[in-house]
């Protein structure tokens, strides 16, 4: 194993640059160092102006996503030593398809708008008083949506999804998976509301099932699967709307309520 590695990092500051240019930094490689440790080494020892986000360093806060050797990764969970053979150069870039604020920092407000748009909260028609205790939910019912509740909003899936890059209005993998998280929750009655938002050319129908979102997800959420299952449900809802005289949206809510 080499004891040094060169990091190639695009530098961009709107005050100085029209577009990013690469800079190289030589950093030591320690067995237990992750890419983030190398960035911290540069910031502390070499160039204090290197700009990136990080916080928990244990793969749960979702701040430190970057393109590492062309792949979306959490830099706190990617060992430096796995790259030290690649000619001793490693490219670390901001997450793809996002506007860049500076260096490795991407612009996330659009993502947050999309997250909110899918109504990611428990929707109930009536709210019994707290004194009635918890909504019962068996471990099996919990299992139905647990996987989709694991998303840490790291946006790696957006950086993996070409549709996000090509079509900026596409709602995107994490947000749709989050909608499914609530749709599949036995306590929720808002699937109809969310369907109205997501059964849309810029919602689920925009997805072409590239499947990359699922491959890069560090928490195994499987947004691609969530979206296809959503499409299937939307198609079945459409068929049902012919069978039942009631409107699509209403049948949906009523069925969910009946399940409760």
């Amino acid at each position, binding site marked *: 194993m080499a004891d040094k590695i060169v990091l190639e990092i695009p530098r*961009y500051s*709107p*005050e100085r*640059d*029209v*577009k*990013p240019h690469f800079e190289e930094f030589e950093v030591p490689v320690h067995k237990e160092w992750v890419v983030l440790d190398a960035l911290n080494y540069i910031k502390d020892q070499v160039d204090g102006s290197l700009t990136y986000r990080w916080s928990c360093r244990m793969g749960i806060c979702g701040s430190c996503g970057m393109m590492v050797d*062309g792949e979306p990764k959490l830099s706190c969970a990617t060992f430096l030593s796995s790259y030290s053979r690649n000619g001793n150069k490693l490219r670390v870039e901001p997450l*793809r*398809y996002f*506007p*860049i*604020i500076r260096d490795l920092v991407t*612009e996330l407000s*659009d993502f947050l*708008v*999309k997250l909110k*748009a899918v109504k990611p909260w428990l929707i109930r028609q009536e709210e019994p008083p707290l004194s009635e205790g918890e909504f019962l939910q*068996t*471990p*099996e*019912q919990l*299992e*139905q949506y647990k996987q989709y509740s694991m998303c840490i909003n790291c946006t790696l899936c957006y950086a993996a999804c*070409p549709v996000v*890059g*090509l079509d*900026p*209005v596409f*709602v995107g993998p994490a947000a749709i998976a989050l909608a499914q998280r609530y749709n599949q929750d036995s306590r929720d009655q808002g699937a109809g509301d969310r369907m109205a*938002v997501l059964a*849309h050319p*810029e919602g689920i129908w925009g997805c*072409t*099932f*590239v*499947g*990359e979102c*699922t*491959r890069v997800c560090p928490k195994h959420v*499987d947004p*691609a*699967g969530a979206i*296809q*299952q959503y*499409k*299937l449900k939307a198609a079945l809802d459409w068929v049902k709307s012919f069978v039942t005289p009631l409107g699509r949206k209403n049948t949906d809510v009523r069925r969910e309520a009946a399940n409760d």
Partner: protein
Amino acid sequence: MFAVKQPTTKVLPLYQEFHPRWYRPRVSVYWWLGQWQYLKFILREISSVFVAVFVVITLLQLRALRAGPEAYARFQHWLQSPIALAINGISLFFVLFHTITWFNLAPRAMAVRFRGKRLPEILIAAPNYVVWALVSAGVTWLVLR
């Protein structure tokens, strides 16, 4: 539904203090060449073209059948031409690629649950292959009988 942010104009405005100017990388037209997974995806999608090509060939063959034994023989002869064989050889590769990717992705699109647990993907994918084998055998039998 979602606000589309207009890309910056061609002439870049100068930086003004306290007004961040984002750099927006453009997605190359050849984005799908840069990464093996993307290329695989595009090949998967392109497979549909070869599906369509074969459907057209099938329809032409049916028309030839309708038109009588001579027309059918002429069509058979065309199928033996190098160009037809080349097209169909490539088609076979893509069609098989379609079948395999389709079967392997099917379990992801369908969450089948049994006693609260989601069935492992292999249990959903495997029957697809079994059905495929049976149907293929059935068609072959019917045609060759």
